[in-house]
């Protein structure tokens, strides 16, 4: 199975990287751009009996390591056919 995990800063936390990119976009002429937030995209290939088992494991991975709940949210997408 393949999984895609997106980790983003929790709303309300200043995303300094996002701000810098937003400024750069403005200077390129994309003046209508706002609210740029940068996160992490993690791809994982894994063996699991069922989609549910995989999701449970991914949830644990996120809580333990991939995201820090103090400052980040995470979202997991699972492709059970592995494509």
């Amino acid at each position, binding site marked *: 199975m393949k999984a895609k995990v997106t980790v983003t800063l929790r709303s309300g*936390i200043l995303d*300094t990287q996002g701000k810098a990119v937003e400024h750069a976009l403005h200077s390129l002429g994309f003046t209508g751009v706002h609210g740029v937030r940068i996160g992490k995209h993690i791809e994982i290939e894994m063996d699991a009996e069922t989609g549910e088992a995989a999701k449970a494991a991914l949830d644990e991975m996120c809580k333990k*390591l991939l995201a820090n709940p*103090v*400052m980040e949210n995470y979202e997991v997408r699972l492709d059970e056919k592995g494509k």
Partner: protein
Amino acid sequence: MNRQMITPPKKLKFGVVVFPGSNCDRDTMHVASLLTGASVRSVWHKETSLGDVEAVILPGGFSYGDYLRCGAIARFSPVMKAVAEFASKGGTVIGICNGFQILVESHLLPGALLPNVSRKFICKNIRVRVDRADIRPTKAMAPGTVLKLPIAHHDGNYFADEVTIKRLEKNRQVVMRYCDENGKVTPEANPNGSLGNIAGICNEHGNVFGLMPHPERCAEPILGNTDGLKIFESLLI
């Protein structure tokens, strides 16, 4: 330096944990070794026991290349189980810079260290005011003491949710705050955006202490600043 200059009243065995990517471990061990009566050993991150160590320091550096998040991977080094157990029994644990980041990732201290608001790596001398001078690493100082210490970090912006910040303040867990030369805590004196100008905190019991500045980099007269030594000396009281 003249080792006779410092005459602590008791002996202490320091353990300095070395992770892959630690780079302040030698400096920290050097300073600890200058203290008369103190002995120090390095503890490789794969060790599962701290042995007879009486105070543990997690040094600065870039453990695991700061991959994923600063301190996020070091947290799972085998030695961290022993460190957590040591801390739960009241053992003194100090995390400096990356060591502080590892302590928050390990949940031995609350909160998180976000990238500096300036988006820059900051390497300079700053001032901190010691607000809590009754824990082991600060008790050689009077409350309100202003220290000049160097910082060198990209992610030192202390963050915690409102409830946690309130709890920290109520329990007097804020040990140090960034301040000006007169000890005044101002937004201008805040180098990285930390909430409440927080530069260092301790756990509820006061035995686990994390700070972003580097006391081990200013603990000898030849370096022009010995303010950092006060933290090491405090441990020997």
